[in-house]
């Protein structure tokens, strides 16, 4: 991120960067950067906190009026609202799943059942948030699941995204499944940490188990892109990835 500031500024465009990793800003030395002590993925601090977000923006934009450069690296003084562990309430997903289908029906069947049970919660999320992050692959969620699950088979299903290499189509379908679960599981307003939602998906859902099984199966795939994806960018580091 901070490197882009060098390129823009060399082209005559003034920049101010928000930095989530202070050590990187210290090394890259962009003209102006505001380090923020927020969770990765949340450069403005917290969702639905417009006044706090504006405070962050004001602090970053104010660096444009600094006359002490080049290289201004300031620290934003406050943690994000809700970022402290003690603010968390021990979130649990409100959905009580029915007992999984018989073991021999496989993880794909169990995941499809789960998705059906989550459907009203996903709809509730749509009604409340007025938006969804599902839609990267363009597939219906059931079809995305079947496609991902087919990588358990010796020969995966035909790539449903003809303009995308199969490994990236797999990744896009996976992204949609994650988003579907995340949105449905958090459809009710309330405080929860991103870690709690992630733990729920990977440790308590059939979809998480399906993904782990697919990851294991795809480690030996002939598709190098797929191997890289499942080994490096599928399971979060906080889940042992």
């Amino acid at each position, binding site marked *: 991120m901070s490197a882009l500031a060098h390129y823009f500024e060399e082209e005559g465009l003034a920049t*101010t960067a928000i930095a989530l990793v202070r050590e990187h800003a210290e090394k890259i030395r962009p003209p102006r950067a505001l380090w923020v002590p927020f969770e*990765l*993925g949340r450069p403005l601090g917290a*969702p639905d906190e417009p006044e706090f977000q504006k405070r962050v923006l004001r602090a970053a934009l104010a660096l*444009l009026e600094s006359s002490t450069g080049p290289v201004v690296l300031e620290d934003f003084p406050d943690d994000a609202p809700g970022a402290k562990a003690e603010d968390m309430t021990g979130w649990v997903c409100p959905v009580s799943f029915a007992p999984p289908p018989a073991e021999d029906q496989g993880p794909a069947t169990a995941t499809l059942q789960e998705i059906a049970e989550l459907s009203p919660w996903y709809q509730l999320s749509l009604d409340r948030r007025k*938006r969804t992050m599902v839609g990267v692959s*363009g597939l219906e969620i059931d079809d995305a699941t079947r496609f991902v699950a087919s990588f358990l088979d010796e020969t995966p299903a035909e790539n449903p995204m003809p303009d995308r290499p199969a490994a990236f189509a797999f990744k896009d379908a996976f992204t949609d499944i994650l988003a579907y679960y995340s949105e449905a599981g958090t459809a009710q307003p309330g405080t929860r940490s991103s870690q709690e939602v992630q733990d729920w998906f990977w440790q308590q859902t059939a979809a998480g188990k399906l993904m782990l099984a697919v990851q294991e199966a795809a480690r030996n795939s002939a598709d190098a892109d797929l191997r890289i994806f499942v080994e490096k960018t599928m399971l979060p580091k*906080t889940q042992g990835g």
Partner: protein
Amino acid sequence: MARMEDLVESEQAHLRHLPLPSFESTPWIGGPALSERRVAIVTTAGLSLRGEKLFTRGSADYRVIPGDADTGDVLMNHVSVNFDRTGFQDDVNVVYPIERLKEMAAAGEIGSVADFHYSFMGATDTGEMESSARELAGMLKEDQVNAVILTPV
């Protein structure tokens, strides 16, 4: 929370050993008062509009996000899974603060908001993005932009 010591060890190691570009000097462009600045957002969050061409691993190009795009159509397809997405799921402004900038422009805190904003996919080597970034600088200047806020993810 993004203090290095708060991250799991494997993530700390990854971030500490990430190859970073080095620059011999730092350029510095001035400009008018904030109340006269036209501001654009450039993010590395891997954002694109629904139905648009998706990023892949190593993508060095960027996507255009019109300032009046429905935020419901702004999707994230970054390749990394090692950052939170639930914040963006709840509110695009936590990554792409378009509504906050518009409010600040309406209040006279900044001059105006650019017509177009842009997203790269930050897992790519930034050196690979250089030519795209320089090209983009020209487009931003054509839009009379004289201040860019860069947001990571």
